[in-house]
Structure formats: C-alpha cells, structure tokens
C-alpha cells in the first residue's frame, strides 16, 4: 500500500512540471555518471571540509586527478545580518557589521561607520585621535587577517608549524584588542562618530613592548615560507589569474596586487587620514598563489610600519577626544573599569542620576532611540584585508538604516574558483582556495 507522504498527491491546480526540492542536484550528477560509465568522479568537498575555510561546498568533477569542473555552493552561513541591521539603530549596526568577516572584524566596522558618517555628513568632524585609533586598529586587524590566511594555508599544505607561528603572533594582536575593546573578536569598537573609548592605561605600553617581537616574528615567518622549496613547489605557478581576469571578475585586494596593479584604496582614495602615513603598496608580478602570499607577507610588514607611526602620533597628540563633539550624534555614555572590573564612569552616572535631568533625558534618548540620519544614500569603500569592501547605506531619515548592503570582497573573489581550479589537480584546489582567503562569515553574511 503506497499511502502517506511518499505517494504522489493528485493536484488539479498543478500545471506543468512539478519540481521537488530535496537531495538537490547530487542525485542527477551521480545518475549521469553511472549512465555514461566514464572514469569521472564527482567529489563533494565540504561544507564541512577543514580546508574550505568554514562552511563552503565545492562540487568538483574529476577526471582522474584532474579537476574538469568546479562548482561553488555558498550560503550555509547566511544569517541575514543586513536584514537585522534594518531593525537596529545606526550605532548597533557596528556590532552587527563586525560579525560578518570575523577574521578582520574591525575593518568591517570601519567600512560601515565611514559610510554612515558620509551619509550623516559628519566625515570631517571626526576627532584626530579617533582617526589615528581607527587606523591603528584596522592595520592590526589586517595583520591578524593575513596571519590567519598564511598560517591556515600552511596548515592545509601540511605545515602545522606555520600555523602555530602565525597564531602566536596573532595572539599578541588579539591580546591588545582585548585590552582596548574588551573582546578578542567581534569588537564593535569603531562607532559612528569615533571609537567606543580611548585606550586604557598601559595598552600603548603593551603594544610597544610586543612590537619588536612581532616584527621579528613576521620576518621569521617570511623567511620560513617565502624561500621554502616545498612551499614554492606547492604555490609557484598554481592558480594563476591575470589582470584581465581579475578586472572581469571584479577581483580586488592581494589577488589583483599579485598581478602587478597597485590597486589600494588607502593610497588611491585615502580615508581616516591614511594620506598622512608613510607606507608602500605591495605588489608582485607572478599572478599566482605564491605572488598572493608574497603580497600578504610584505603587506603585514608595511602595516607594522603604519602601526609604529600610529603609536608615535598617539603619543605626540596626547589626551584628546575620541568621539565627535556634536551632541546629536555622540554616544553619551563613558566607560571605565570599576572595582568590579566593568561598568560606567562614576562621574557620568552621578551627572545623569543626580546632577542634570536634561542629561538623563539626552542619554536615554540617544541610547534607546538613537540619532537620525538625513534621507539619502551613500557608498563608501575601504581597502579591507581581502580586497575592496564597499558599504551602501540608505536612510529614510529614521534612527535605523533603511537598507545596508556590504559588497564583500570574499564573496566576490570566490567567483574566481572555477577559473583557478579547472584543469588543475585536486591538491591544487586547496591552494587556490586558500590563496583567495575567503571567510564564510563575510561571504554569506
């Protein structure tokens, strides 16, 4: 007796072909292979494969060891962050943006707050100290992101030592982040109008103390891989994509710089005062996986130069505001470490609770309702560790975004997978993917 849910249900309304979702294309592919009786294997790599950088599904059609067709499946980590942002205030958006590309969280915040500030028309009112702190944090995030890219690539090629060295240096950066923002990742430190709070006592001293060892560590790392014959055998001439290919596919970041084009928005369209820093745009001319790692490795050392300049600038500037002066936008609360290790600044609490009723109302309105941004739209792109990170924000004049869209470099760059992999061997798929350095939190958002 064939009843129940498996039986086809007669449906008078139904017209034409009925499509049933379930199993997807996997069965069709397997059936086709069985029918053709070819030496053709379809390998489903991921979404839980350790070398797919999170939940990425690759469907590889193989002829022996050779990949004949690569298909990419994304969306396993889609959490609707852009939609969620439409129901939170402009300030809360920073805490959501940070969760997209979680390996370089602070850079996502940077792109978001710069777009919001452009929309609100306050870009030139951001205090200098906040600008320096933003550059400092974004460059440290870049180093941290590149270390994960290089370290995990080394790990995937069988060199666990590379990962341990990379993560050892990254640990120093995360410690500094924790000191300053309270969290190692997902910091929500950059806010529209400035940064959440100034550096705590001792944070800059800590950074200065670990700085020499970090420079030494990065140099060690560079020495260890860039001339390493095994590393070169695995990456030189692998996963090539020339400049024309990069332009057609909209590829930016280390991938396009590895083709020799110095496309870097920090130089081309400076934001947050990048024009005041002395650094080089790193390029390579090999257009392969090796070149991309070379660019990343050199870029980390250039970023260390920027970090050193930030430290100098912060010390020369001394105490200064880190939040915009305009009381209509500036976050009213001040944070300080109380006896219990957390909490509001006692002076601020005293003022709003027993000093001034107006201050209390102001605090309450800004924190619960948030500020309003005039209707319109704005777009701002920054040079993210992965490439060009563009944020399109639309406001309807309310206290929450009408629409936020992130043009994620990882999402865009993953489109190159089939160009990089088709015709190569399966072992090079891992190299190609790692050289793109996608982070699925950013891809799927």
């Amino acid at each position, binding site marked *: 007796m064939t009843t129940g849910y498996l039986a086809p249900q007669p449906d008078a309304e139904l017209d034409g072909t009925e499509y049933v*979702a379930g199993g997807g294309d996997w069965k069709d592919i397997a059936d086709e292979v069985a029918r053709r009786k070819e030496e053709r294997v379809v390998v489903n790599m991921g979404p839980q494969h350790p070398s797919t950088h999170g939940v990425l599904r690759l469907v590889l059609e193989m002829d022996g060891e050779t990949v004949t067709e690569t298909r990419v499946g994304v969306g396993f980590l889609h959490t609707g962050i852009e939609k969620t942002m439409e129901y939170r205030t402009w300030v809360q958006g920073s805490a959501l943006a940070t969760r997209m590309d979680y390996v370089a969280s602070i850079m996502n915040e940077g792109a978001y707050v710069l777009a919001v500030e452009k929309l609100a*028309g306050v870009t030139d009112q951001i205090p200098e100290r906040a600008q320096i702190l933003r550059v400092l944090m974004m460059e440290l995030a870049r180093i941290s992101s590149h270390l994960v890219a290089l370290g995990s690539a080394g790990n995937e090629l069988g060199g666990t030592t590379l990962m341990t060295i990379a993560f050892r240096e990254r640990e120093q950066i995360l410690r500094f982040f924790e000191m300053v923002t309270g969290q190692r990742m997902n910091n929500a430190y950059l806010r529209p109008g400035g940064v959440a709070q100034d550096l705590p006592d001792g944070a800059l001293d800590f950074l200065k103390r670990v700085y020499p060892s970090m420079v030494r560590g990065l140099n060690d790392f560079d020495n260890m891989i860039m001339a390493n014959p095994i590393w070169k055998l695995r990456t030189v001439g692998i996963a090539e994509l020339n400049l024309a290919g990069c332009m*057609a596919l909209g590829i930016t970041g280390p991938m396009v710089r590895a083709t020799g084009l110095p*496309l870097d*928005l920090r130089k081309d369209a400076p934001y947050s005062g990048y024009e005041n820093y002395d650094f080089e745009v790193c390029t390579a001319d090999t257009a392969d996986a090796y070149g991309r790692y070379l660019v990343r490795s050199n870029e980390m050392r250039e970023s260390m130069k920027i970090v050193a300049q930030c430290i100098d600038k912060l010390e020369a500037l001394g105490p200064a505001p880190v939040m915009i002066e305009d009381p209509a936008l500036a976050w009213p609360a001040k944070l300080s470490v109380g006896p219990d290790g957390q909490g509001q600044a006692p002076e601020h609490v005293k003022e709003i609770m027993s000093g001034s009723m107006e201050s209390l109302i102001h605090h309450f309105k800004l924190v619960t309702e948030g500020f309003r941004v005039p209707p319109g*739209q704005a*777009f701002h792109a920054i040079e993210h560790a992965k490439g060009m990170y563009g944020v399109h924000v639309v406001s309807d*004049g309310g206290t929450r975004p009408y629409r936020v869209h992130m*043009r994620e470099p990882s999402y865009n760059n993953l*489109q190159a997978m089939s160009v990089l992999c088709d015709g190569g061997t399966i072992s090079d798929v891992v190299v190609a993917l790692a050289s793109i350095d996608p982070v699925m939190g950013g891809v799927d958002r």
Partner: protein
Amino acid sequence: MSEHPDQGELTAQARPAGAGEVIGTRQGAFGAHGSGDTSGFGGLNQVVEFAPPSAKPYGSWFDTAVDVLEEVLADQGITDAIEKVNVDRGELTLFIRRERLVAVAQALRDDPDLRFELSLGVNGVHYPQDAGRELHAVYHLMSVTHDRRWLRLEVAVPDDDPHLPSLVGVYPTQDWHERETYDMFGIQFDGHPALTRILMPTDWVGHPQRKDYPLGGIDVQFKGATVPPADQRRSYS
C-alpha cells in the same frame, strides 16, 4: 501666516514638496500609535523624500563624464537612457531606463574617457511606497584607469514586472551579485546564465530583503507570552 513673517520666510526657504523622490511619510515623533497622544507630536506629518534631481553644472569630474556618456550614447542613437542625474553628498547617481542599461554599462566600460572597468556589484533596495518604481537596482562602478573615480547607476522597476537586463555580458563579476539580488528581492535579471538562489536554500519561498517579507516572532518560555516579529514591535517613528 502673515502674522508671523519669520515663519513665512522659513516656508519659502524649504524645498518644494514633490521635487525629490518620495519614499514614505512619517507620523509623530516617538512611535506611539493607537494610544492617546500625550507627547503633542502626534499630529506631526513628515514626507520623506530623497534629494531632487540635480541640474548642470554638477561639479567635479561629473559634468565631463555625463557629457561624454551622452555623446557616446547619442552616436548609437540613444538619447533617452538617463532619466535623471542626482548629485548628493559628493556622489554621482545616474538613473537609467532599464531598456538602456546594457548600452550604458557598455559605454561606461569601453569608452577611453570613461573606462569604468571595475564593477562593484549590484544591490537592491525596496521602496514599497514608490508606486511603479518599487524595486531599485543600484550598481557601483569604479574606474581604475581614471583616478579610481566611481559612480552609481540606479534602475527602478515596478514590482509587478521586476525584469532587468543582466549585465553579466559586460561585467562577468555581476554573476553572483545578480543572483544575490534575485534571491533577496526577486528582481529578474534577463539574460543571466543561471539565475538561481545563492544564499537562501533553493526551495525557499519569498525574497527576504523585501520590506513586505514577513518576519517570524520567537516564542518565549513564559506561559502565553510571545515576542512579536521585529517589524511589528513598537519602534520610534
């Protein structure tokens, strides 16, 4: 009005209503609706509109770029491609008729004086109140050749005919971006090689980024209590 000359002056300075694109209206100031108005702001009615179209000169490099684009299109016999030009917050937005989108993109990419060769993808925005122009597709194009300048193309399509020509032929990078916009807004990009969902599961019903997409509420553990969906919670207007 004549008793209050100051007020009259203010009105004269205000932008004439209807000049910009109206995207909605806002009532009151504090978000309390349906109960007695104790704030005194309940009668406040504001029309939300975007900046009106700009007139030449636009400033910066915008004039040259728009002139060159119009010239290149006129050579092809196209004179109606640009609906309006909007310069706001230092950004150039060209509103393009959908039939002309491919020709415009091709001209922007290929003309040596324009050369916007890097596409930064497409993004949808849903304006339910903008009758006949509910769904907007917003493209950002950057020129690597000319100074990393960038501009925005905006194409509006009605909700009951959400069709746009695909730009994959001009900018291959549009592939995934158009799939995402289809997935999230239901905009159909005609001519796309495989317009399927990309972030949502293939059997998903609806397009989540649309403003009319229903949001789920979460049941909490207390007896009989539910948390209303985010779009139905009380919020500031």
